[in-house]
């Protein structure tokens, strides 16, 4: 380490704790060492595994190409970290600067990074959720269990929720030649993340690949036999399905409960932090020693008009954690803002879907290149005459060009003169549903302007809208 590195580091920072031993936690630890931090790094994780990669859990692990235990992530630098795995953190004492673990141990810190991420939203009826055959998909263990179920050749798989996880699971089922039904409360799959215009295309892909897709439909109940094995699902359209596997793909819940009474500003939407990743306390002050990164963070992005974003993306976990790590060990003048554009990919039904920017911020979308018929296309998303996101389907090489337009706040619809584009650009409404209407969650979304507004799901009528069993058409009063 050079002497300039030493000077740059706030000299009082000797002990750093990272709560969350997944991609964001690992990326932060790597960045701390790469930038020359020589103090102690302690990483706390509730799962008993070294950091592993989640994207393959809904793809190659389920198809059987990759064993779940092969997803362990490489550690790119020698971390010399203390790993406390298999024990969750259950409390944070700001004044003592201590984290408490479930086994009663307490650890002091100079700087804390909160990267506790999310967990899968469970089926709301716990007795039904406990039936043998009802699965979630978030962790390595979830993926190994679901892989075993699929390999056993179930007669029909039910996927509850047509978001990215649900759609990828359905895609794998069809690859394995399994009969699969997808139910989605709103009008199309992927509507939460991409809107109904792109969602209609996703729905066409599902049907073309033999998925029994039921939109505007909910599952009202799951039922087992006398041995507790899943047997039936009851649908809001009156149908009953004979099933042995149900995958509950209702989106994610943020792991924030352990911060109760900590004095930090958080709610079910995430922990509020500034663009340097410093957590806010409930008085609206940015703390100087608590940082946040990854799925659990909620922060203002300069390109999206001060809205606080939550982004459950792989790339966000890496880049935000690197920014947080840099800022944790930097003097205030050397801190940098986190302004990386959200970016995402998915593979399903024979196509590679990629996005850059924030589709959920858009009001309009336009096909700019390729065509739906070819299943190769680029679509641009616009908000008030400015391009804010782009989606590619099997045309990923175009994405960097659109990224540059988004960063430059280029006009929408974009002026491209692309030889493979339509003669005339015809924007249509992007078609994002009201919050809570889709069965799944939007993955990356603006969540309102600041800490003072209570989350909409805290009112009782909205709680009913959030219940995935409530059929479409329910109007909150």
């Amino acid at each position, binding site marked *: 380490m050079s002497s300039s590195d030493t000077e740059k580091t706030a000299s009082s920072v000797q002990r750093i704790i990272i709560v969350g031993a997944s991609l964001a936690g690992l990326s932060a630890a790597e960045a701390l060492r790469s930038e020359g931090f020589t103090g102690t790094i302690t990483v706390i994780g509730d799962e008993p595994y*070294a950091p592993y990669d989640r994207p*393959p859990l809904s793809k190659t692990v389920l198809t059987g190409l990759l064993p779940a235990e*092969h997803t362990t*992530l490489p550690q*790119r630098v020698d971390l010399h970290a203390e790993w406390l*795995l298999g024990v969750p953190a259950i409390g944070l004492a700001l004044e003592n600067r201590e984290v408490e673990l479930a086994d009663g141990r307490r650890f002091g810190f100079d700087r804390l990074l909160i990267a506790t991420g999310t967990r899968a939203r469970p089926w709301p009826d716990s007795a039904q959720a406990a039936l043998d055959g009802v699965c979630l998909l978030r962790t390595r263990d979830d993926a190994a269990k679901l892989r075993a179920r699929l390999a056993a050749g179930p007669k029909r798989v039910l996927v509850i929720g047509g978001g990215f996880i649900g759609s990828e699971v359905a895609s794998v089922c069809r690859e394995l030649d399994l009969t699969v039904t997808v139910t989605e409360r709103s009008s199309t799959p992927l509507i939460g993340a991409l809107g109904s215009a792109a969602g209609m295309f996703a729905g066409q892909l599902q049907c073309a690949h033999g998925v029994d897709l039921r939109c505007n439909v909910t599952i009202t109940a799951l039922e087992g036999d006398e041995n507790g094995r899943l047997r039936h699902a009851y649908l809001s359209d009156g149908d009953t399905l004979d099933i042995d596997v149900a995958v509950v793909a209702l989106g994610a819940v943020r792991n924030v409960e352990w911060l109760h009474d900590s004095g930090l500003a958080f709610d079910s939407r995430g922990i509020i932090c500034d663009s340097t990743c410093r957590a806010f306390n409930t008085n609206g002050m940015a703390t100087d020693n608590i940082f946040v990164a990854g799925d659990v963070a909620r922060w203002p992005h300069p390109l999206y008009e001060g809205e606080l974003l939550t982004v459950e993306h792989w790339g966000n976990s890496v880049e935000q954690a690197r920014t947080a790590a840099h800022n944790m060990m930097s003097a205030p003048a050397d801190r940098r803002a986190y302004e990386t554009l959200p970016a995402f990919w998915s*593979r399903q039904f024979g196509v590679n879907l990629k996005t850059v920017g924030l589709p959920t911020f858009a009001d309009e979308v336009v096909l700019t290149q390729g065509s739906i018929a070819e299943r190769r296309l680029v679509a641009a998303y616009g908000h008030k005459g400015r391009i804010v996101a782009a989606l590619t389907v099997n045309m*990923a*090489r175009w994405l960097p060009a659109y990224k540059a337009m988004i960063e430059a706040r280029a006009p929408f619809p974009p002026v491209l003169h692309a030889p493979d584009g339509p003669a005339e650009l015809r924007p249509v409404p992007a078609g994002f549903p009201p919050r809570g209407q889709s069965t799944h969650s939007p993955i990356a979304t603006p969540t309102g302007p600041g800490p003072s507004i209570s989350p909409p799901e805290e009112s009782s009528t909205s709680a009913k809208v959030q219940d995935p069993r409530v059929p479409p058409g329910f109007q909150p009063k």
Partner: protein
Amino acid sequence: MLRIVVDLNRCESYAQCVFAAPSVFWIKDGESLEYDYVPDDSLRVQVERAAAACPVQAISICWLDEQLGQQRGNHNEQ
């Protein structure tokens, strides 16, 4: 043990890695890259060539034995 991870946001499916290490990387459905996170150690040279050949430098490689041992040690203490 050899371990790799690919930044698939960065990946633009040029497939140079597939040519360099065909048993480790493969293209699914025309554009989606898939790969084995834990290639056999005997493929090290191939994997290093693949990482070097990537036009967008999306492939990270490391050897993990030491860190993994350390993690197991800590876990057993509990």
